[in-house]
């Protein structure tokens, strides 16, 4: 009677909707066919079929869901007609789902921590990184505890206190003692974390003048989409450079080194970064064009490369590549440097090899590295100088500026 009428109207709507979607589908099919014809009729002929197939599949799912909904509402209505106070209790249902979500979610979290947690970076290959990892673990433990407790409370409450017409909620507008507790306790915990973080951060970033002097000086310059590294050489100083000199000296001066500065002549150009273990190393970072980020995840090292401004990062490697290969049980393991700041189309492909070796191997490696300033550059520079002397003074300024 009444129920059947109600269902009929609804099903008519559903039917109309289905027809509408189907017609829509046909149109979609027609237009896709037209589009294909433009691109390449042979190659992509299967696409419209495929699209239609998936749309129909989706439609089928929708119909199934609509059917389930319909069945549920019929069940609900019959229950009501039979005189039951309420039909299907959606409040109870959602409460149970929340509880289920809690259980499955906690298991999923555990699963993620163990399975995916095993895939994260191995232990830090640098000294400061060990401190960072320790702090990370402390933070992780604290946050995980809070995460689990609050979620248990949230979903147990939603389950336990789901609606019942017999119950009445407990009128509790405020409780200042509780408020104080959960203001002060997080504040204390955060203070501890802040202090730990602050001192670690200062340790990493505040290096004494002596510390700076004793480190190996390496300069890394980023550009779209590669890295250039040079070592300070015998004097352990990276010579002066000027971006306006880039591309000069017959196209050989890729970094824009200023040959008037004698410190440049012993600088070494390298095709991979090789570091001696347990020896502090200081990176001076720069960029020729846009922002890049000097990121070596295994060393817990990251610093942006900014055009027009030098940035620094100093650290001490503590595990050689060979050590790390043993630790991660992978004979092919290698450290690397990558770019972490969006820098253009090939941002995802800015790899540079990094190797940590013993002091002995390092010394040996250093011997075979080529100087940054080669004879061709010096020749071109001297020719320039000679030309300059014959030319007017204004030209000179323009060149050396």
């Amino acid at each position: 009677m009444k129920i059947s009428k109600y269902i009929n109207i609804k099903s008519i709507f559903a039917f109309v909707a289905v027809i509408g979607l189907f017609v829509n589908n046909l149109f979609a099919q027609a237009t896709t066919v037209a589009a294909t014809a433009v691109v390449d009729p042979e190659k992509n002929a299967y696409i419209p079929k495929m699209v239609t197939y998936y749309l129909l599949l989706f439609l089928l799912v929708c119909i199934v869901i609509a059917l389930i909904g319909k069945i549920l509402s019929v069940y609900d209505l019959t229950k009501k007609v039979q005189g039951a106070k309420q039909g299907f209790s959606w409040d109870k249902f959602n409460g149970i789902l929340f509880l289920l979500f809690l259980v499955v979610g906690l298991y999923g979290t555990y699963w993620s921590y163990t399975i995916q947690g095993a895939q994260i970076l191995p232990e830090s290959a640098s000294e400061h990184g060990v401190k960072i990892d320790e702090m990370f673990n402390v933070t992780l433990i604290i946050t995980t505890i809070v995460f689990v407790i609050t979620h248990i409370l949230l979903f147990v409450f939603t389950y336990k206190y789901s609606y019942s017409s017999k119950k009445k909620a407990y009128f509790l507008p405020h409780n200042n003692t509780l408020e104080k507790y959960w203001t002060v306790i997080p504040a204390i915990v955060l203070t501890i974390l802040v202090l730990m973080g602050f001192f670690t951060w200062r340790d990493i970033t505040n290096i004494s003048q002596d510390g700076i002097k004793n480190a190996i000086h390496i300069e890394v310059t980023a550009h779209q989409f590669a890295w250039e590294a040079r070592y300070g050489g015998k004097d352990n100083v990276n010579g002066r450079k000027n971006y306006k000199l880039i591309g000069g000296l017959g196209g050989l001066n890729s970094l824009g080194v200023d040959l008037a500065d004698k410190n440049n002549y012993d600088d070494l150009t390298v095709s991979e970064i090789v570091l001696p273990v347990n020896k502090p190393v200081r990176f001076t970072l720069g960029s020729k064009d846009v922002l890049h980020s000097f990121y070596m995840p295994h060393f817990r090292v990251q610093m942006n490369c900014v055009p027009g401004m030098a940035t620094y990062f100093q650290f001490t490697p503590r595990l050689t590549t060979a050590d790390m290969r043993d630790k991660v049980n992978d004979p092919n393991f290698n450290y690397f440097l990558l770019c972490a700041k969006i820098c253009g189309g090939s941002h995802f492909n800015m790899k540079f090899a990094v190797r940590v070796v013993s002091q002995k191997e390092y010394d040996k490696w250093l011997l075979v590295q080529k100087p940054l300033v080669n004879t061709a550059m010096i020749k071109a520079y001297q020719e320039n100088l000679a030309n300059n002397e014959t030319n007017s003074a204004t030209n000179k300024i323009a060149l050396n500026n």
Partner: protein
Amino acid sequence: MATLTLNDTHITAQTDHADHGHHKETFLTKYIFSQDHKMIAKQFLITGIFMGVVAMTLSILFRIQLAYPDESFPLLEMLLGKFAPEGRLDPNFYLSLVTIHGTIMVFFVLTAGLSGTFSNLLIPLQLGARDMASPFMNMLSYWFFAVASAIMLATFFIETGPASSGWTIYPPLSALPKAMPGSGLGMTMWLISMVLFVASSLMGGINYVSTVLNMRTKGMDLWKMPLTIWAFFLTAIVGILSFPVLVAAVVLLIFDRSFGTSFYLSDIYIAGQALPNEGGSPVLWQHLFWFLGHPEVYIVLMPALGITSEVITTNSRKPIFGYHAMVYSLIGITVLSFIVWGHHMFVTGMNPFLGGVFMITTLIIAVPSAVKTFNYLATLWRGNIKFTPAMLFAIGLVSFFISGGLTGIFLGNAALDINLHDTYFVVAHFHLVMGSAAIFGMLSGIYHWFPKMFGKMMDAKLGYLHFWLTFISAYLVFFPMHFMGLDGVPRRYYAFTEFESMNEWLSVNKFITWSAILGAVAQVAFLYNFVYSIFFGKKSVQNPWDSTTLEWTTPVEHLHGNWPGEIPTVYRWPYDYSKPGSEVDFISQITPLSETMNSNLPHDFEGNEESERIQMDWEKQNNKETVK
């Protein structure tokens, strides 16, 4: 607590607005250039939903690329043409997708779509005002937003493609058309669009603030405002103070791009040429951008928190726990949000000492956030929870807010940030805490106030389906990303194929992509429900959720001016649910204390001795024990 109470701001001048209903309305003035706040709210909502669907589709496109970096999808070439040659996304277009996805989601959906909709709808309705302080400016606000949206979407149809330097558009990448195709015309249009957007936001914000301060009905002092209004009010203040800085930054960038200035550019050698710009600093942009950018996070989040407070308390049939603490924590977040921006810049070359300072301020802001979370939990405790779809989404928000907030403790720590900066850990963090949480707040608001907006009910069961699929898929998408970040996988990578160590995440990427597709498909349930219910939904009753706030005292049929007669006077705070002694489980804000002698509590009188005396007399007469 009475220090902030302002009892003397009852403006009643708006009562004579009632005859506005007699204006002759054409289609144009009613639906297009409407000055009625309810219609403008709907315009914001529908535009916001549309933009949301667009941005979600973009995310599915780049998720497909991440899951199947080596496979070709001829369908993509058919749809996108030269942006997907041979059926594979172009790397530059991939970055465009990421950029526009972020821009649209943050600004167009979660700022305009969320604040624009609910501030417009609820501020006049919950405060008892006929309309906004300036309806005309309100209309302009929407149309600036609409134009901004159109310009932003139009960038997909230009030769060089949309802006592609990330939603933060860091120069020099965004300043140099030679650096990437997206930094050409696409970026110019992005900047124009954002200027219009900010203008829209400011007009909206000024309107919200002036309405809240000046147009409250009689009896509605600040401490009787619902938390939604507090949230919208503070959000608008944050917006007014921070958005102009973005405009300043954007204008300087326009100068750098088009007029040869050097605000952000220095010492650049690109495409075989040394540029003349010297002395600028890319870090300056970051300071200016994040001075907006970080408060922006709270502009996105606070309205969602306000909506959630309202929805949770209504559906728990319990007063919100710690109303004053909730307001103070919102105020705390508002103030602190302005001094934490540097935590986005720990490793950008900013002075490390500043890094330490920003770390301290950043972790302080976690305290008010924690207070809010615990107050939500305490509100649920011993409630009588009705699971309307709105309530489900509100609970979902609390869950996301906890999960995402906790990972913020890692990122706010400068030392930990060294290795997490610009990795997937960050992506996971902000997608949970501001992405998912804010969108859940928005959806919660839509389900809750749909009857108010359209006079119809949405289908609850479809709402349940929508919630569960979205909730589960959001966690499936973002939870694994944390671990990718901990493995040092940077964000905005077109493919993980170039690094051997990232290969192990390919299967996870496939899983994430399929979860994202599930989540996207689930939105069809919402869209269908939304559109169907507007036209064929069950007719709503006046107060479908048995709520105490003022908006439910207006008639279901909209009328210009909101209340047919005089605007009701407010006598009590908005959270008298399940009050002991009361026969009904909610007492509307417009019910005077004199009608509820059974349930009055001492604090209801706010120290008014006369009222206390009357209550005591009544209690003596009725042999009732004093509740004190």
